[in-house]
């Protein structure tokens, strides 16, 4: 297990290097001279040159990349071009909101998705199953911003069940409930499909038939025999969901005014604040890689066969 963890950890190294390289190249290719941006529109050419030298922009590209890596290693993500605040500080300040949002969204998505998937598999072909299928296709297809706007208009605006803005959320969880639900709908729908199909597949196996023949109660078959074996695809989907949460948070936080990372990214995009955008993209990619690494460990722990398969195939 330890060997597996180590090898898997080493496997993330090239990925991380690639992410860094891409992020660096993107920032390098962005139109406009960063020194000019910092110096302001009316700066003299000498001032721009001086700032460029200060920022190390006059050095060759590989050297700049190394310097960039060195800065990143010390946790320095640069400064915002607009507020001049260190990007890392802002991320630390805003991430808790996004994390809270994501955790709640995941709770919604797992509970709803499992419920719908189990119901679908239990009453396969029945009315409940069809309803769940229709709902999950709709949930996957309907854009998250449409959900957001409709929920905002109906549930928060017309029915006044929820606050219309989460900007002053502070430490409370309540204003984040509706945004989190919006964020969770899509992955709940996705999860429901996967749970249903993997449960159905497992339920066709011989050991389930044996259990049934032995007279094991249906609920016990479902939870002790089938669900445990359907766990692997379910975990995969939860891992994939993380990416959709990071994507979705940009949209959801914009709609509901959540002062988190997604909204921060959106503001930076509108202001063309490249260091901030780059910092957020990097941070998200790192979170994604790290969580996937953890999930792989969980996988291997649940199912030892995966350990061998992973290295046999890859």
């Amino acid at each position, binding site marked *: 297990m330890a060997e597996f963890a180590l090898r898997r950890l080493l496997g993330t190294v090239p990925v991380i290097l*690639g992410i860094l390289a891409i992020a660096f190249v993107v920032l390098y290719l962005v139109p406009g001279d960063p020194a000019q941006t910092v110096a302001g529109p009316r700066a003299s050419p000498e001032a721009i040159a001086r700032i460029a030298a200060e920022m190390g922009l006059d050095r060759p590209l590989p050297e700049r990349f190394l310097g960039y890596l060195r800065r990143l290693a010390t946790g320095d993500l640069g400064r915002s071009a607009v507020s001049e605040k260190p990007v890392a500080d802002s991320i630390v300040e805003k991430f808790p909101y996004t994390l809270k949002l994501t955790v709640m969204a995941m709770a919604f998505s797992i509970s709803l998705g499992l419920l719908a998937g189990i119901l679908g598999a239990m009453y396969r072909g029945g009315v409940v199953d069809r309803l769940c299928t229709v709902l999950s296709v709709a949930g996957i297809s309907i854009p998250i911003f449409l959900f957001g*706007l409709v929920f905002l208009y109906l549930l928060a605006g017309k029915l006044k069940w929820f606050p219309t803005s989460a900007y002053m959320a502070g430490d409370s969880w309540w204003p984040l409930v509706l945004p989190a639900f919006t964020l969770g709908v899509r992955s709940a729908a996705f999860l429901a499909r996967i749970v249903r199909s993997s449960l159905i597949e497992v339920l066709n196996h011989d050991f389930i038939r044996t259990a049934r023949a032995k007279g094991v109660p249906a609920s016990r078959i479902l939870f002790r025999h089938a669900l445990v074996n359907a766990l692997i695809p379910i975990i995969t989907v939860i891992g994939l969901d993380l990416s959709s949460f990071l994507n979705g948070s940009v949209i959801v936080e914009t709609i509901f005014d959540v002062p988190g990372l997604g909204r921060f990214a959106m503001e930076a*995009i509108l202001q063309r604040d490249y260091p901030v955008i780059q910092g957020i993209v990097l941070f998200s990619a790192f979170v994604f890689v790290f969580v996937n690494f953890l999930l792989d460990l969980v996988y291997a722990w649940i199912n030892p066969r995966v350990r061998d398969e992973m290295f046999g195939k890859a």
Partner: protein
Amino acid sequence: MTGLWKRLSWTGRLSLVGILVLVGVALAAPRLVPHDPMETDPLRRLAKPTGWWVEVPAPPSEELSGPGAQPTPVVPDGLATPAGEAPDLSSGLSPGLSPGLSSGLSPGPSRPATVWRPGFWLGCDQYGQDVFSRLVYGTRLSLGIGFSARLFALAIGLTVGLLAGYFGGWADWLLMRLVDIFLAFPSLLLAIAISMVLGNGLLTVILAIGVVGWAETARIVRSQAMELRSAEFVQAAQTMGASHTRIILTHILPNCLPLIIVIFAMGMATAILAEASLSFLGLGADPALPTWGGMVAAGKDYLWVYPTLAIYPGCCIALVVILFNVLGDELRDVLDPGRKGSW
């Protein structure tokens, strides 16, 4: 093809027909719209929906065929509509009377004061642009961008997947690490980064969505190619001395075709969603273009006074994506029974 039609269930057929209809709408958009989707008019700002026809003051210079003449729908041809034709506020907002009624009400036979024009069936947006016409044109943009982006993604993904899967070894390792890297970026953020570098524009959006989509395609194609590589007919071809190119093109590729069709249909759904999300965030093509995502974004600011401005285009996106998802599911079940239900 007819065999495929027979094997599809009714939901699959319905979605296929729906998609074909939408493609028809997209192709025929200029002939279907009652107004120029880009024509602004400050006097029609946020106007509520009108009836089928609206009465507008007759433009001074225009020849008219007589009182109560059957109104002819104006087919906008680019921006060629004469400036004088813009209806004014009062009549633009009044619910349209039927053309038949108007003949009785029309004033003098020599020179009627008003003419009938097609109404603004779904109202007007904050620039006074006709929402219906913009929705119709949006079909064109949405499907067009989605299709081009998928084609781009497929070209790269297919090449990488086939090469990695067929050759294996270090090429496979290298290409798959590349895939991992691209999959590690949250797709929307990657698309945002790309559109930042290349600036706003149609081509940028297509590239951004395509770049995001290719990695998934490559991964799926690779696993299929790996399976096929060890198939007997491929080994037979190798024994007979067929070149790698020949084997890939004549043996592996055709056997990947069903999979490719499925990936393409499903990918269309994702690509259209991605385009909508980018436009919603203001990173799509030119914001003045009638993209659905852009319309939702613009309508969002008027959510409390005019919710349908954002809801209608949102529903259009949802409809198209549902159709492609249902069709993709069906095709997967029909063309690729081995994978039924998985992924």
